[in-house]
């Protein structure tokens, strides 16, 4: 297990990752709202890039959890982080400091980046993908 898991909790034989689950929901939201141009800058190219990054993150997060592949999960969290940074930095340049999406994106980037580090650094100091089971 990693620091991103709820200790001792499993669902469908897989670890429960609350931050990962929350990011799955948020990625679904961002795919829909940006692909359908319902975001604050939906008519621009960057909106489709945000939708694409969110879709990649969503697929990687779901696949990694179902297939139990730790490294894919890390890439999914990194894609979510990149999506939030892209959206937030563009919103800052285009809409300014007064836009709500800027601060929502900063928070999302911190969550996704922090979750990536928690998954990449397990408590034993050994990267989880090197082992197939946990040590007790």
């Amino acid at each position, binding site marked *: 297990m990693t620091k991103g898991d709820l200790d001792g909790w499993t669902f469908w034989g897989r670890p429960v990752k609350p931050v990962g689950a929350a990011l799955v929901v948020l990625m679904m939201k961002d795919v829909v709202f940006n692909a359908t141009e319902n975001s604050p*800058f939906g008519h*621009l*190219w*960057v909106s489709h*890039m945000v939708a694409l990054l969110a879709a990649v993150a969503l697929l990687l997060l779901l696949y990694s959890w179902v297939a139990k592949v730790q490294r894919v999960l890390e890439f999914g969290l*990194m894609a979510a*982080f*990149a999506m939030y*940074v*892209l959206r937030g*930095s*563009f919103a800052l*340049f*285009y809409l300014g400091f007064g836009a709500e999406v800027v601060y929502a994106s900063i928070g999302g*980037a911190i969550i996704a*980046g922090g979750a*990536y*580090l928690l998954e*990449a*650094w397990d408590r034993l*100091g*050994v*990267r989880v993908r*090197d*082992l*197939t*089971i946990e*040590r007790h």
Partner: protein
Amino acid sequence: MDPVLAQALAGLITAISTAILLWSAHRWGPNAHDNDSRRQELPHDHADHGNYEEDDSET
């Protein structure tokens, strides 16, 4: 700001920040300094068979 310039800057910031995140995971992780040596210590049998019992044969 011009939207084209804003998109270019946002893309640049995204690439740099993602690279920093990836680098920091390897640079400042708990096993940052002994990552390679620790991996060499792990026999493949542990991963292949899911058997990671403590070796107490020397005690």
